[in-house]
């Protein structure tokens, strides 16, 4: 048979999907809302709703069509929009929650499970609209279901806006309190970034950046199971061979994303943006990044050697993926969320992985401290200090870092919290008990580092 593939490759593809949980994690449509600004907030809300519904009308239908025709599960269809603070700026009024509600309604109308972009970019300072939006986040996340929010508080170019960092500690606390009846689920939809990217298709941190076209299709792939199985099958490789094996697996996973992205873009008549080649785990068995690190020879993720193992994995995934797609972007690397990864959950319950080790690992993973449940009585200043540490790692290393922690009201170390679905479950992890309050209260900006002066 004269084809571009062998029957062995046909079976390999089928095995990856059937047994190793290879899937397209998300097709995310980025939609600019810049043309929705209006002096009246009500009108702005209506324009946002209308535009999202118009542009994303066929998104979910095309997603299911592609999944059926190619035989590859497409787990989510999602939408990212222009950071809402930028659009709201022109409108009157102090209360932006109606905009949040309009976007939530639009997400429900077109059938996507998450819409990201209730966001502000404040790495150097806040406009009045930025501050109003940030202060409305707890309420917005309490009254909506599908809305995700993010705030960029630092960058390598701008330094770290410590006023915004101090504020975000309080915002996370009140978001937790506003959704206390649901184990603080609001915090699972709120990400604080340093060096946020414009084309990230993954939630909760997706927004449609300022330099993007009117509408765009970005695809996030995922294949921890494929990488895990490849490593398990060849246990005696040295590190060079191991890296090469991971590259091959990442190549194939990314190719699948590229194909689906291009086809989705053609059928929706929307330009194709990027493939984000992240290894994104789920709480399901066999879909864990932690288990990949353990398969490399660590008794439990979190023990000594975990940072090195993750560095190798993250780099090999990028190298293999970069060969597979003409446009790689987004976050692209290995995610290490706690509650969303079955191996991480177990390691956290055993005490094998600690908060500090997770922080160290974020120096070499694709993003940051992710989906970590912490005691409900954690002071806001401690949360701010966690954000400052994480942002410092991102700022100095010119990478994206983020914090998505959940201080669960009424729960402490020894308790467990269940979010359900892809968000998973997690034990409450202990934090340092000594105060950072005076440090956080200083205010001002941490200056941009010398790395920023590269012109």
């Amino acid at each position, binding site marked *: 048979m004269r*084809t571009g*593939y062998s*029957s062995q490759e046909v*079976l*390999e593809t*089928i095995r990856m999907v059937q047994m190793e949980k290879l899937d397209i994690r998300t097709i995310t449509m980025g939609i600019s809302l810049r043309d929705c600004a209006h002096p009246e907030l009500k009108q702005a809300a209506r324009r946002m709703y209308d535009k999202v519904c118009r542009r994303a009308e066929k998104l979910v239908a095309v997603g299911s069509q592609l999944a059926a025709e*190619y035989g590859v599960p497409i787990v989510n269809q999602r939408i990212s929009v222009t950071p809402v603070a930028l659009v709201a700026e022109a409108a009157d009024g102090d209360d932006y929650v109606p905009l949040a509600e309009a976007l939530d309604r639009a997400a429900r109308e077109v059938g996507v499970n998450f819409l990201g972009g209730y966001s502000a970019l404040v790495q150097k300072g806040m406009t009045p609209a930025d501050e109003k939006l940030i202060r409305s986040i707890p309420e917005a996340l309490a009254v909506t279901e599908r809305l995700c929010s993010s705030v960029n508080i630092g960058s390598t170019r701008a330094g770290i806006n410590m006023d915004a960092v101090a504020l975000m500690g309080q915002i996370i606390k009140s978001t937790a309190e506003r959704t206390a009846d649901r184990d603080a689920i609001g915090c699972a939809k709120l990400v604080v970034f340093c060096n946020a990217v414009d084309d990230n298709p993954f939630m909760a941190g997706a927004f449609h950046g300022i330099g993007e076209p009117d509408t765009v299709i970005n695809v996030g792939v995922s294949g921890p199971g494929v990488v895990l199985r490849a490593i398990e099958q060849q246990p005696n490789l040295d590190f060079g061979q191991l890296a090469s094996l991971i590259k091959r697996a990442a190549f194939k996973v990314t190719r*699948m994303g*590229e194909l689906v992205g291009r086809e989705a873009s053609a059928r929706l008549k929307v330009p194709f943006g990027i493939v984000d080649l992240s290894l994104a785990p789920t709480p399901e068995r066999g879909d864990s990044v932690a288990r990949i690190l353990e398969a490399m020879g660590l008794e439990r993720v979190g023990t000594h050697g975990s940072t090195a193992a993750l560095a190798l994995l993250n780099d090999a995934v990028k190298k293999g993926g970069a060969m*597979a797609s003409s446009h790689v972007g987004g976050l692209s690397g290995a995610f290490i969320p706690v509650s969303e990864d079955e191996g991480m959950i177990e390691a956290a319950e055993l005490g094998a992985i600690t908060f500090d080790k997770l922080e160290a690992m974020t120096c070499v993973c694709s993003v940051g401290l992710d989906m970590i449940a912490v005691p409900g009585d954690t002071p806001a200043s401690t949360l701010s200090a966690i954000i400052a540490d994480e942002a410092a790692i991102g700022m100095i290393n010119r990478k994206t870092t983020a914090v998505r922690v959940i201080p669960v009201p009424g729960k402490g170390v020894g308790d467990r919290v269940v979010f359900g679905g892809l968000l998973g479950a997690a034990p409450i992890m202990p934090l340092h008990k000594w105060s950072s309050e005076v440090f956080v209260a200083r205010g001002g900006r941490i200056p941009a580092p010398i790395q920023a002066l590269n012109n």
Partner: protein
Amino acid sequence: MDKSTRVVVTVIGRDRVGIIAGVSGVLAEAGVNIVDISQTLMQDLFTMIMMVDIGGARIGFDELQSRLAVKGEELGMRIQAQREDVFSYMHRI
């Protein structure tokens, strides 16, 4: 991307009498031309890979998929039809 009308049908399950007859019957009835057939074992399971062309088919791709799924249940096999691009694209540049 070239719009190929070729589809790969894979049949996986325990070997038994009448698999090829059953599957090719569904295809013939739908006006789908079989271009190539190969068989192999994957982890002790019987595996048949058929390359077919749906260019002259009398029914749509989704209808073909559901008819094959029904036949699969009848035979106790898992039958899947996928556009061939997914295989050619995934492993090579």
